[in-house]
């Protein structure tokens, strides 16, 4: 904690430091979405026939759907015809070795603080970096392959592992699931595929950094992670995007599948461009994330730190199908300026003795609006299932809002559901106390907010926890007084 605080001042000065644009030649298709677009995307990616057919099914279904409006969000209408659905840095058709990569791209990652070379050498993290739509670098592939782990871009997986893809793609989030998931299924550009074979503990943390660079480019990642019987993996996803004036749509789909005794831990730190002070620009982050605890005693854990995006709409969920399976959701969501977030989780208990834990920390500052929306469903077979939910909101200032919508559906009389919620404010007394002890106001807020989020941060892998604390400090700079 103290290490991050020492950097706070330096970071505060920097504003939205990821707001730069990389000048590289891009292969971008013209804006618009129709059947031709789908054919074009599929052709650009040299996809097999079944993949194209899947995309087209999704597209035709999407045409019959309406954009949902039930969330506690004010969303300007999105013109889906004004978005370009494919953008790739030129001359890159798939991952290459580091020295072949455009130095501009590498320097972009360096500015983001993720030097690939260094990470390869030091951190032991394999990075599959998604730059706009095509994976430009995949590291540590060899080490992982020795363990039998597959870690590659989803485009490669479509070609190299068609059986796995056809079996599992869309098995947790079907192409008919919801408006944005259907759109993703139709036009998804790239993303990550992870397969951990039976009994294998993935030897390193897997990580992907996403970046949206091209103006007006929607980014539609697709992530699929499968942990076979007794396998385990920890996956980190970090997101940053450069400054743009127009809203950019990000509609990703993440599917996790855990077989018997398998464990998947999925951590996200998201600091996409939130828009300027007046709410202009910023990312629309409309994401469908769902995990299927397919096997008995399987375990899926979502941890997210959401500080960016103009609008966040996401509910990482667990379907607890296997008996004794466990679902967890740990979340910190920060909104300030004109940011809006409607986020939470769904825990669907189907198997007996299933357990779920929800810890949600919402922080609202300035005019930020923060909504927790969660569903806990105990189905008729969920004997002795248990859930514990804790939703805490912290308000900074007097113009922000915190809202909580917990939905609880219990169809089995032996199931137990507990829900706790608190709302608190950083008090003048607390600030005075800290300042009397010599801390600056910024430092005081940072300490108090980090304290508020501690339960969630301790779930994050170490490097991410430090990054998350830094992000909070930057995000909340100047929120008080």
């Amino acid at each position, binding site marked *: *904690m*103290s290490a991050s*605080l*020492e950097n706070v001042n330096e970071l505060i000065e920097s504003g939205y430091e990821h707001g730069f644009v990389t000048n590289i030649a891009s292969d971008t298709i013209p804006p618009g979405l129709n059947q031709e677009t789908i054919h074009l995307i599929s052709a650009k990616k040299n996809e097999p026939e079944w993949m194209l057919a899947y995309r087209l099914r999704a597209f035709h279904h999407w045409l019959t759907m309406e954009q949902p409006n039930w969330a506690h969000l004010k969303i300007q209408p999105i013109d889906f015809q004004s978005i370009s659905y494919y953008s790739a840095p030129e001359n890159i058709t798939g991952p290459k070795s580091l020295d072949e990569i455009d130095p501009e791209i590498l320097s972009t990652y360096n500015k983001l603080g993720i030097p690939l070379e260094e990470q390869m050498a030091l951190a032991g993290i394999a990075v599959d970096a998604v730059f706009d739509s095509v994976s430009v670098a995949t590291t540590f592939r060899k080490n992982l392959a020795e363990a039998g782990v597959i870690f590659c871009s989803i485009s490669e997986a479509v070609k190299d592992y068609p059986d796995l893809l056809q079996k599992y793609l869309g098995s947790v989030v079907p192409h008919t699931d919801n408006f944005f998931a259907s759109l993703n299924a139709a036009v998804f550009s790239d993303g990550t595929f992870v397969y951990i074979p039976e009994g294998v503990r993935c030897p390193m943390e897997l990580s992907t950094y996403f970046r949206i660079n091209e103006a007006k480019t929607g980014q539609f990642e697709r992530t699929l992670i499968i942990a076979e019987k007794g396998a385990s993996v920890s996956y980190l996803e970090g997101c940053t995007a450069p400054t743009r004036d127009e809203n950019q749509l990000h509609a990703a789909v993440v599917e996790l599948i855990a077989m018997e005794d398998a464990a998947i831990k999925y951590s996200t730190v998201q600091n996409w461009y939130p828009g300027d002070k007046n709410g202009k620009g910023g990312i629309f982050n409309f994401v469908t994330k769902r995990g299927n605890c397919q096997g008995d005693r399987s375990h899926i854990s979502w941890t997210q730190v959401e500080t960016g995006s103009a609008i966040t709409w996401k509910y990482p969920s667990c379907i607890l199908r296997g008996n004794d399976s466990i679902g967890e959701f740990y979340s910190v969501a920060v909104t300030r300026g004109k940011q809006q977030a409607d986020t939470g989780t769904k825990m669907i208990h189907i198997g007996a003795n299933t357990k779920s834990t929800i810890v949600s920390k919402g922080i609202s500052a300035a005019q930020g609006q923060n909504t927790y929306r969660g569903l806990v469903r105990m189905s008729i077979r969920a004997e002795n299932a248990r859930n514990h939910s804790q939703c805490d909101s912290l308000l900074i200032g007097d113009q922000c809002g915190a809202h909580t919508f917990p939905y609880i559906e219990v169809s089995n009389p032996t199931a137990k559901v507990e829900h706790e919620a608190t709302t608190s404010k950083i*008090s*003048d*007394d*607390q600030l*005075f*106390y*800290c*300042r*009397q*002890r*010599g*801390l*600056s*106001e910024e*430092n005081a807020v940072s*300490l*108090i907010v*980090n*304290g*508020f*989020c*501690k*339960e969630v941060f301790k779930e994050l892998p170490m490097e991410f926890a430090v990054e998350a604390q830094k992000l909070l400090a930057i995000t909340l700079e100047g929120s008080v007084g």
Partner: protein
Amino acid sequence: MLSIKNLHVVIDNKEIIKGLDLEVGAGEVHAIMGPNGAGKSTLAHILSGRDGYTVTQGKVLYKGNNLLSHTTEERSHKGIFLAMQYPVELPGVNNIVFLKEALNSIRVANGKKAIDSIQFMKLIREKAEQMKIPAKLLKRDVNTGFSGGEKKRNEILQMAILEPDLAIMDETDSGLDIDALRIVADGVNSLRNKNRAMIVITHYQRLLDYIQPDYVHVLSDGKIVRSGTKELAIELEEKGYGWLSQGAAA
């Protein structure tokens, strides 16, 4: 060290301090006593720079400079420490982390190097032992779930670590049983030295049995109405504050 001249302070259009004079020299311990509503806590707040108070007249010099133009944290950096009447809870903020941040903020503001974790742990263990503060208290979140006595002891521990030049204790005895009072007083006494000034604000004479002041002042209706030595406190305890206002009237 501290020189207050004809101080007038207003909160919400109401005058609370009405022409207060006080001189505190280095190494001295001054007790300020007075009935509820006399302006004791207001004085503590105005010296430490709490928002919401307006000084309409008078001046406060600290080490020869105008104190009132500095922010709360600047005053802390210059060596002013307020042991609070109601120490606030900071849930999730570890006591050790908080104290280290505080000490380093003060050190850095004074052009010193920040102290590292290893040195700090050594320091805090040593001070905690002196203050008879159990190690488990250090590991908990700042004041969170602490008993009244633990909170006050924690304040004195902070004072021991931050080593202020002017320490103000606002009703440090309130809510303490006799054993806790003794421990807190022992802590305060161990911090007395020839360079450090202390202002002990209290409602009851009881605390002064344990912390022997050099001077005693009685604050009533926003002014110091009587100053003296320890004997004044004893007289007050016997006769009550009513005696004073009668005495003043006579």
